[in-house]
Every structure is written in C-alpha cells, then in structure tokens.
C-alpha cells in the first residue's frame, strides 16, 4: 500500500521537476509587460504573435524551419542507402560507414561543431546558410540511420523471397515490398531529425552564427543582449512542437521498440 503511494509520489516529483522550468517559461511568456516576472503581471498572448510579426523572430523561425526541413531530408537520403546496404550486403565498408554514421551523435556536440567550423572556414564557405543544413544533416544522420536499421531488420526475409519466387526482380522487390514496409521508419527518422535540428544550437552557431540567426541562436543572443518575452513564447512553441511530433510517433508507431533499438546501438 505504502509502496504504491511512494511510487506515485516519486513519479509525481519527477514529472513536476521536469515540467516546472517549461511551466515557468510558459507563465513568463504571457506576461503583459516586457519583464521577466513570475507569476505574470497581467495576461497577454501578444508575445506569441510577435514571433510572426517581429521581422527578427519571423526570419529566425523561417531559417530554423528551412534548415530543419532540408537537413532532415538530406539525413534520410544519406541514411537510407546505407541502412539498405548493410541489410542486403555483408561488407566491411558497410560496417565502417555505420560507425561513421553513429559517431557525430555520440561525441560531444562541441567537437562536431568545431569540426564543421574548421571545414567550412578552410573551404572559404563560412557563413553561407546552406552549410548549416549540410552540417545538421551529418550531425543528425544517426537518427534516421538507427530507425532505418531497425526497420530493415524487422523485414521477414521470407517475405522478400516469396516476392522473388513470384517473379519480382530486385528493383521490383524494393519498390513493392521493402519501401512500403520501411516507410514508417523513414517517417520517424525524419521526424526525430527535424525536431532536433529545430532545437539545435551549437553546430548552427559555430557554422553560420554570425550571418544567419536561427531561433536557438536568437534566444541565446536575446539572453545576453536584451530580454524579451518573445523568447519565452518561442520556447513554449518549440517545446510544444516537439511534444506533438513525438506524440504522433507514439500514436502511430512503436515508440518503445524504436527506443529499444536506439539504446541498443550504444
């Protein structure tokens, strides 16, 4: 009896601690005046409108979304053929590339960010917006790689062989059997990568921080140079987006299984 209540208390405490900072930020975001106070004085949703009205924030939002859309697509484009190759073939180069694909995510992000900084600076391309998309794609390629590796491994090879005995050559098999079965994993890989790219700071900062402001960069600059509740509003917006995306994956996909594989990669 006591054990059950202790357990509930424990989980409640964790839930509160996890939610508290976001809750406070949400409270701050509806403050009527441009000050950092909680509980809020007055109530105004105006700061949420500012995200779209203020050109600085709007451009940052567009930049963040554009980079997220592009980098996630590129990440999936890199991860898919690699995951396919490792499922279809037994070759050492596949294993090496798999390791390379998992590396950027396992290492402290500063290192990857610094690596990209050195690279783009040396190539003379420092500061151009598309370099952020490429950098994010490589940094986040681990995510679709893991989900796709899981997806491929869940294909019953006898299904593929059955298709072969029915007259499907390799290309037809990929098109009619493998792609439909692997599609959910492509989607979840893209979604994970998208959410993380949206929120990513250090790589974006080091690579294009002085020329392009993404939302996290703008929040950081605002922290240093001038507080505005719009920061809080956009924080709530991004957190909510992440929660919605993951909730969708949770509803339509098999989240525990995806995460079982994710941790197993380590």
């Amino acid at each position, binding site marked *: 009896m006591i054990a059950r209540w202790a357990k509930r208390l424990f989980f409640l405490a964790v839930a509160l601690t996890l939610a508290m900072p976001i809750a406070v930020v949400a409270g701050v975001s509806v403050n009527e005046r441009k000050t950092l106070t909680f509980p809020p004085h007055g109530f105004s949703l105006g700061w949420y409108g500012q995200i779209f009205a203020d050109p600085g924030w709007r451009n940052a939002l567009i930049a963040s979304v554009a980079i997220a859309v592009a980098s996630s697509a590129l990440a999936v484009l890199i991860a898919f053929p690699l995951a396919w190759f490792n499922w279809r073939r037994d070759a050492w180069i596949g294993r090496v*590339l798999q390791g390379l694909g998992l590396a950027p995510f396992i290492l*402290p*992000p500063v290192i990857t960010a610094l690596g990209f900084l050195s690279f783009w600076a040396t190539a003379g391309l420092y500061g151009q917006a598309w370099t952020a998309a490429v950098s994010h794609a490589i940094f986040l390629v681990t995510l679709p790689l893991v989900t796709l590796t899981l997806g491929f491994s869940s294909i019953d090879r006898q299904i593929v062989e059955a298709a072969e005995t029915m007259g499907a050559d390799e290309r037809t098999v990929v098109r009619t059997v493998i792609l439909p079965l692997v599609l959910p994993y492509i989607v979840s890989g893209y979604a994970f990568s998208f959410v993380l790219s949206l929120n990513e*700071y250090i790589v974006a900062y080091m690579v294009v921080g002085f020329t392009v402001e993404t939302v996290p960069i703008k929040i950081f600059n605002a922290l240093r140079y001038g507080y505005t509740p719009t920061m809080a509003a956009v924080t709530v917006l991004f957190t909510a987006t992440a929660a919605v995306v*993951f909730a969708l994956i949770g509803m339509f996909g098999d989240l525990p299984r995806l995460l079982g594989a*994710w941790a197993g990669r*380590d």
Partner: protein
Amino acid sequence: MKREKPRSAADYLPVAFPAAMLAVFFGVPFGIMVAISFFRRVQGGFYEPDFVLANYGRFLSVFFGSVLGFSLELAALVAVICVAIGTPFTYLLTRMPRRWQIGWLVGLLAILALSEVIIGFAWSTLLSRTAGITNLLAAVGLVREAWSLSPSFGAVLTGMVYQAFPYTVLVLFAPVSRLDPSIVEAARTLGASPVRAFFNLVIPTLRNAILATIILVFVFALGSYLLPQLLGRPQHWTLSVLITDQAIYQSNLPFAAAMAVFLVLISLSLVGLATLLARREAT
C-alpha cells in the same frame, strides 16, 4: 534475398552517396580539425599551417588542469545522480501499462530535444529572483523576500542533471525492459519485499548496464557547453565551454582544436568501454 557479400562493383553502388557524404563532411572536417590543432596561432584571430605542439603544451598549465579536473568531477557527479534516480525510475516505468510508458517517453523525448539554450534559459528563469521559485515562495509568504539561486554550482548541477535525465532513462530503457519479470516474482514468492528484491536482484542483474549508462551519461555531460556559462560563474566552466570560448571569442582555433581532439579521445575510449560492457550484458 540473402545477406551476401558484394560481388561486383555495381553491388557497392548504394553506398556510394553515403560514403562520399560521410567522408567529405565528417571525415574531412575531423581531419582538418586535427591538423589545425597542430597549427601555430597568429595574433588577430588567424592561424598558420605549421606543426607545433604548443597547443597541446598548454594542457600542462595549472589553469587547464583545474578546468579539466572540474569538468570530470562535474560530469561524474551528474552521471551518478542521474543513474541513481534514473534506474529505479526506468525500472518502474517499464512495469507500467503501455499507454503510460508511451506518454512518459513522449515527454522525456520532448525534453531531450530541447537545446541547451532553452534549458539554460528555462532554469535561469526558474532560479531567478523575479520569476523563480523563490519568488513564488515569497508570494505565498513562506519566505520574506525572493533571492536569486543562480549563478551557482548548485544551479549548474541542477541544470545538467535536468538535461541528462531523459537521456539516462532512454539509455536504460532497453536493458531494463529486457529484464525477466519472473526473477522478481520468484523473489517475492520467497518472501522478499519489492524494495529488497529491487536492491538485491534487479540492480546486480543490471550491473553492467548501469555501469555502461554511467559512462555514457558521463560523456553526455562532458558535452554541456552552455549550462555552466548560463547558470554558473567562470570557475564553473567546463572543457566544452572552454573550447567554445577559445574558438569563438578568443579566436584561438588551434588551441580549441587541440582540446577538442583530447575530448574526442576520451569520449571514444569511454564509449568503447561502455559498448563492451553492454555487449557482455547482452550475452
């Protein structure tokens, strides 16, 4: 379609694009960074191609030593706290009905996705004088007036534990969910209370997984580049903060690169160790 060895050059075709992308955009940047770590720093924020060990030599300074020592201690503390709370948490989580599990996982993932900027901002708000907990306590009359809880070591520690906790749970999730529930049930029928069964049976069974998780969270915590800055004072800066600082504000890329190489070596060997432990657990 069996998993066969590639036989012709055409069989390698699928892997051409990923190989090129990873080689050019991961391998090369890495190589350049290693090279830069040996370059000579020139005043004014540039560096000259050279081969000097001066950058690595700065490791031997007291300053660097103290930053390194602090970083390692802080990361270790974060790892231990996270795993201490996270292990019973994850264990209980995996025994929950599926819907609750998914709900919690969604929440944890959402927090994991947050950038360090946002976490730093949120916690600095929570610990501030005007908008934080103490303000709330003052408003309800528990204390006389609010005060700021940051910057401080406690603030940094709290922020980093907050950041690493979802990661800890996710890493533990797989091995813990693979635990055979009949072990604990057998213990219960033999008279052990759930708490005792947890400490006497579950923890020893998960020993390797727990160790591997501590190591991985350690590496994760080493990667915090903003929280020590936002929530702490300069004496609380960690290696990652120093790297960022040297690279951007001090424009000393070679030194930053040298420290980064050092950090890579530590991280890779630790991750390798954790992988070995995890493999032994699985067999």
